């Protein structure tokens, strides 16, 4: 009975973390929060892997004098999780660097607004008259044209170097 309960708790916890993280990533609007949700989803996947290698009444996979002939848990998923935790932190740092730069350029953390600005920027960079820009209320946020010009200017500078 208790083993059943423990399994349910553990698997439920891991799947819960993954689901909460993914729901967060797709529904949250703040890009800083999205990074947090991603971290949580990753933690859930890591927990799932460790659970996959667990068995009851076993000890940690470290050989000592007293551990001869004792049941041990699986070392392979643990090694995998070690790797994936460190990978996760690298990606997280890169994501935050991008958040900083996006905020610096667009002065907002709202993903919807960023997305809209992004498509207007792409449109104006390629010279397509945007349908979106006419929908934007004038005066509420800086108009896309000047920023787009800045960007082409930067691009040209990059090309000159």
């Amino acid at each position, binding site marked *: 009975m208790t083993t059943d309960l423990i399994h349910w708790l553990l698997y439920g916890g891991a799947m819960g973390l993954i689901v909460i993280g993914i729901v967060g990533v797709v529904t949250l609007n703040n890009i800083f929060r999205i990074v947090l949700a991603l971290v949580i989803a990753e933690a859930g996947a890591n927990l*799932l*892997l460790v659970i996959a290698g667990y068995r009851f009444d076993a000890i940690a996979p470290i050989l000592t004098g007293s551990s001869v002939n004792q049941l041990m848990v699986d070392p392979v998923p643990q090694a995998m999780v070690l790797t994936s935790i460190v990978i996760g932190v690298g990606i997280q740092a890169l994501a935050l660097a991008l958040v900083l730069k996006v905020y610096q350029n667009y002065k907002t953390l709202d993903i919807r607004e960023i997305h809209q600005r992004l498509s207007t920027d792409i449109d104006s960079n390629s010279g397509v008259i945007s349908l979106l820009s006419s929908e934007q209320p004038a005066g509420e946020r800086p108009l896309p044209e000047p920023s787009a010009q800045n960007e082409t200017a930067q691009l040209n500078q990059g090309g000159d170097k």
Partner: protein
Amino acid sequence: MNNIAFNVALPLLTAFLLPIISNNSKSAARFIGPFVLLAMLGFALAYFNMLEHPIAIALGGFRPPLGITFHLDNLSLLMACIIPLIMLLLWPYANKEGYREESLLLLLAGSASGLALSSDLFNIYVFYELLSVASFGLAAANRTGAAFAATFRYLVMSGLGTVLALTGIGLIYTQTGTLNLAHIGLLASQLNNPVGLSAFALIVVGIGVKAEIFPVNGWVPEVYSTASPRISALLAGLISKLAVLVIIRLLVVAYQVPEALNLLLVLGMLGIFWGELSAWRSRDLKRMLSFSSIGQLGMVLVAFSIPGEAGMFAGIAMMLHHLIVKPALFMLTEYWNGAIDKLKGAAKSSPLAAILFMIFALSLIGVPPLPGFWAKLLLVNGLVEASASLYITALVVLLTATVIEAHYLMRTAIHIYSKGKKKQRKKLHQTPFNLTIVSVFAVVLIVALVTLAPLGNKLNKIAAESSDRALYINTTFSTKQAPMRKQTSLDQQMSKVQ
């Protein structure tokens, strides 16, 4: 002293040392990258020439299911040759500042080779992550606000994908207790249940972020139109194919069940549908090409979902064709980056580029003498022979998509060949350097056209070899490295196979 592990180790080693090299000698830092790529090409070609039957190499010297193995057959070595070749073509020779982009490109080359060769599920995941992170850096290398925003969305989608893929790998591990692809193939019957199949679905959707598969390809148009054309060419041409390669390995070795094939078929059809329609609606060349790339990868997926050798043959042909055509077209957008109606007069300003564009566009549509026709014909044949109702639906979708494709590509061609204002024309002039690169791709395409028959035979052999599940498994378990010390239940299981 020729070992394929160099193809992964050498670029990584150079990338690690590049900051130090660049501090001491700027010119050495500029030359070492192409040199390493040439060396990689040499190693891969050496193996490619002497390979008679597939072999597996145990890294670290540990017997296959325990350690990590590299699987060397014609398909993986072909990719291992193509990776340095394309990288050499798209290398930023003109880049004089900084070593960071070169470093990222080398890491991309190393991880891509690892992804093509590896036959261990978690190792594939690690190389895939390395590939992702390197491509994030490259996508943001333009350093404009739009590029940062597009890369951020790319990173989030990709991060979501890797969580899903890792979950899938975890599920497979709970079902089989192993990570080696061949060993998983051996235990494939344990995966033919809801858990195993959803693991497959999770991995397909997860890895599919790079392969531009239908529900997770929102990043494609944004990244390709904000990154520099070289990077878009690399991502659309090479990286997407490697992700597809991982999916088909898993499919061939472990998931030869109708559910998995149908999943790929449906995702492929949705990809074709969505990609081609969006390409038709888009009004600038970069986004049109990005969406068309989604559509083309959908066709590749549909091809691989046809069971047996025919599907593999058609899939590999489609894949290689797209690998040549799409990077070339993206390279043309370096100077033709505006809206389609601003391309007027482009043919006047650089006629060679216009001719090259026509060749690639016609091949992409599948107009008869060109290789693209032949690849599409294989796919159509495969679909007709498969003859299930779902495959016939795919056939209808494919033919409709071809019509749409022809319409938007020809619409662009008409704009290119129409007269334009003189002032505008100047902007559309392609540099000789860029034209040379595109011409190289065109030469490859034409050589493929001339040698269609022997090439077809060779590809057919590759397809036969890589769709052979038993061969893959036996290859892995016949590696004779590292003596076993104790007999375990695992060994008994292995001996049963042999």
